């Protein structure tokens, strides 16, 4: 934070707060011993205590545990640990309630896992701990990551920090809102069809969906195994690069992780995009696109051009089938993934006279309506007699969608689109209309089906009300560094990331 923004926040009545720091700002000051991990975590805790009753990003926050981890980071620094060894030393990172942390609750926003405490760390959590990070609280989400507004959480909805009457997006709504409201320095979410990028766009922060196989899924409670990836929410692109680098890499515990080398992403942020070809898919200029979103994204594209990028129109001809394909593949996998929540071994149990009754009572009481809807849909598309027409066909279309992207990437380096068709909508506005809700992921879903990487970054605001708008950049498989660099160039050239929601409680 530079002096002028310090003055600005001072004048706006907010005392200078360490919780507002980005990861890289924190690390440089922490390393210079200007600030401690304890006071930074303390600052995040104070902020959360003050704003979270209104935002409700957190489901659970163990303050003594967070402070103990911060103290450990301070001790390590004092005893001479260097950031090469602990690249995220002392950084408070909050975690979506779908990622397992040993001895912490793991609820997935569902009643069926109420009071469940996980006995093990997800691989990404092990990596964060090894890097010295402070694992900071559990974040709200749509139940089992099924939703686009966080209204499907069994534990109450999360509010958008820019407008408390609006949703933060989903399913990682808590992860986006917590970062946007400066309750933590960064967070982890998961993205199955846009669940990182869409809420990042609606809350005005950076959200990154890595290439499928880039980050281990071990310890991520599966929604749709062939689509899920864990990724970071951050305040800056540099932070996303730092966090991504830490959590990436092949994992012996996840057979679908890929042994592709992990580059030093942060050092590849040159800001140089001269001659870079940016594809603009003509199929994404759809009827339902909000005019303010369209205008803002057009402006962003012009700015990218001014930075040296070359805009190329491309075609992704199977785009119109993406949503249908997604809701067959994802629900089919989910119907099996969620079968384990049966009341036999852990979580909620509602007793019955026999196993069948126990199952139906437990699952009837434990799952919310959207989860039930998707389990039923997934069970249907896999049923004998329907499998070929739905699941098998969807897999074929999925291959075509991936080929669309691979062909496009023969001509362009990145693809740019709006992240969402509209800015954040009002709570309750779409919750009675699942199809409308599904369409809010229309620009993000193809990326998961194709298994490529994508990022959403702030690119401006709507007028009244002032709501963030996100620019999505899609990259080649394992082309993380390219989209990060384009995003970084854009961020440094525009500065939208410095805008903060005015929260006064």
């Amino acid at each position, binding site marked *: 934070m530079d002096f002028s923004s310090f003055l600005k926040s001072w004048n706006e009545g907010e005392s200078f707060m360490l919780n507002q720091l980005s990861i890289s700002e924190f690390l440089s000051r922490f390393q210079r011993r200007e600030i401690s991990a304890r006071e930074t975590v303390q600052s995040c805790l104070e902020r959360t205590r003050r704003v979270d009753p209104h935002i409700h990003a957190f489901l659970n926050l163990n303050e003594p545990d967070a402070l103990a981890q911060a103290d450990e980071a301070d001790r390590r620094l004092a005893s001479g640990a260097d950031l090469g060894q602990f690249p995220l030393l002392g950084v408070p990172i909050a975690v979506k309630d779908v990622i397992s942390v040993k001895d912490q609750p793991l609820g997935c926003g569902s009643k069926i896992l109420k009071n469940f405490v996980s006995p093990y760390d997800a691989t990404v959590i092990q990596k964060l701990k090894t890097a010295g990070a402070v694992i900071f609280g559990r974040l709200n989400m749509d139940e089992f990551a099924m939703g686009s507004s966080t209204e499907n959480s069994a534990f109450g909805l999360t509010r958008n920090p820019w407008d408390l009457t609006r949703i933060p997006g989903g399913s990682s709504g808590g992860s986006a809102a917590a970062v946007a409201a400066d309750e933590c320095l960064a967070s982890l979410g998961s993205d199955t069809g846009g669940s990182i990028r869409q809420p990042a766009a609606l809350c005005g922060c950076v959200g990154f969906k890595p290439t499928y196989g880039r980050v281990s899924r071990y310890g991520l409670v599966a929604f749709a195994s062939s689509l899920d990836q864990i990724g970071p929410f951050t305040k800056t692109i540099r932070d996303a690069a730092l966090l991504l680098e830490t959590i990436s890499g092949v994992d012996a515990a996840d057979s679908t992780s890929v042994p592709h080398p992990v580059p030093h992403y942060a050092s590849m942020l040159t800001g140089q995009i001269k001659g870079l070809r940016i594809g603009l898919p003509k199929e994404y200029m759809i009827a339902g696109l909000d005019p303010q979103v369209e205008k803002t994204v057009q402006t962003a594209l012009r700015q990218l051009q001014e930075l040296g990028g070359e805009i190329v129109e491309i075609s992704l001809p199977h785009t119109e089938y993406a949503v249908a394909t997604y809701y067959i593949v994802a629900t089919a996998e989910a119907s099996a993934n969620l079968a384990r929540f049966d009341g036999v071994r852990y979580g909620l149990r509602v007793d019955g006279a026999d196993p*069948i009754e126990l199952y139906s009572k437990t699952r009837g009481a434990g799952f919310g309506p959207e989860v039930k809807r998707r389990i039923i849909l997934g069970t249907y598309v896999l049923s004998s007699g329907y499998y070929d027409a739905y699941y098998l066909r969807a897999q074929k279309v999925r291959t075509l969608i991936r080929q669309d992207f691979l062909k496009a990437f023969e001509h362009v380096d990145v693809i740019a689109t709006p992240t969402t068709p509209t800015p954040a909508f009002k709570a309750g506005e779409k919750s009675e209309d699942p199809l409308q809700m599904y369409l809010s992921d229309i620009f993000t879903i193809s990326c998961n089906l194709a298994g490529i990487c994508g990022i959403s970054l702030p690119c401006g605001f709507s007028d009244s009300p002032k709501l963030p708008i996100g620019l999505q950049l899609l990259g080649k498989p394992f082309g993380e560094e390219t989209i990060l660099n384009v995003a970084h160039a854009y961020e440094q050239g525009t500065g939208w990331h410095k805008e903060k929601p005015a929260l006064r409680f």
Partner: protein
Amino acid sequence: MDYEAVIGLETHVQLRTVSKMWCGCANEFGAPPNTNICPVCLGFPGVLPVANDEALRLTALTGLLLNCEIPPAAKFDRKNYFYPDVAKNYQITQYAMPSTRNGYLEFEFENRIARVHITRAHLEEDVGKNFHFDRNSGVDFNRAGVPLLEIVSEPDITSPDMAYEYLNALKDVLIYGGISDCDMEKGMVRCDVNISVRPRGQRELGAKIEIKNMNSFSGVRKALEYEIPRQIEVLNKGGKLVQETRRWDDIGNITETMRTKEHAHDYRYFPEPDLMPFEPTESWLDEIRRRVVELPLARKQRFMSAYQLPAPDAETFVRDVPLGGYFEALAPRSKNPKAIANWVINNLRAKMTESQTGLNDLKFKPELILDLVELIDSGKISTRIAQDVFGEMFATGDPPAVIVERKGLAQVSDTGAIEKFCDDVIAANPKSAADFRAGKTAALNFLKGQVMKASKGKANPNVVGEILERKLKG
């Protein structure tokens, strides 16, 4: 009408691996309930399976031993069904693309070599075990995730006895290959049966009926012995058989309906997205080819033809592989392999059992058995004396020639000495001599025995016979 049975078997075998199929938990029978468990085999939220490579290797090895193709790629699918012993409420199994397929198993049956085709041998995971108490039930997940091979036969089996012999032959192959310990008591082998009957000569198959819940090979035979006449009777009475699953009742010795086709499960198979397809490389396959062993039937046939052994001897060496190996190290160097087999089977094995000695702890060098047989065949010692020499050799490790020399056991063929023995025996046994002269030839054997006894076994029995006969007739 004359009916014939058409039988196919699905045999589940637990693989002999150190750890389970998807996690590092021990694959071990008999541990206290729920002690070999972890988040992965309990299906906790967020866990992922990682395939056990040794289980994949044993599956491919089974394929090679059962003359199967190894397709270029195999993959796992999810078989969805709810049951308390299935931790994830789906079982991971190779449904669409098994590791091996299209093979056969040959075995001896009714004095011919029978061949049963193997549709596939595919890899999956075992499930936990349910226990029912007075007021509640429990599940032991120690077995959940143990690698399980399902070997599916074509419906080539025509009788309960043939099914029984197939299962035993299959078990022998699996034990031979080190694939499974096949301990029935520990539930390492389980078998389901598919059976239909049809008028002999008809090509079209009858309604397929599956029978479950047999817990031994003889249980399979008994279930078939019950089920085949039952189906024939239904048809003979003008009834109709429908596809169904029946349960074998081991106490009542009957089968009873479990579920009919209308209530059959829809398992909603689909590719397991947590595992990548497995594509065996040539070097991986080479490593497995090096683990291929000679199968029991081939070994028996080879022992019989290469060494002119009778079937029971060859079978002994098939059952006791190390003993067969011991024999094979000697047999090619002997003019009389059959005698070597006799000594190894009748004497060596008995002595080893009696003294609790293993093949590796023998005091004498294997070659000494060659020497011993050579001493017998050249007439140096009698078979009787050879027993004593062997006993001494077993106890001390000394060569038989040394023992014969030391103890003065060389056979006496000197006719002078033998004539003396014969004269004495004839004189001492006038009644037997008279009997022989009166035409009772059996009396000669008695006199011969007396001479052998008098010579302490050292007299050459052939020479004794000749001299006695000459003297009695003369």
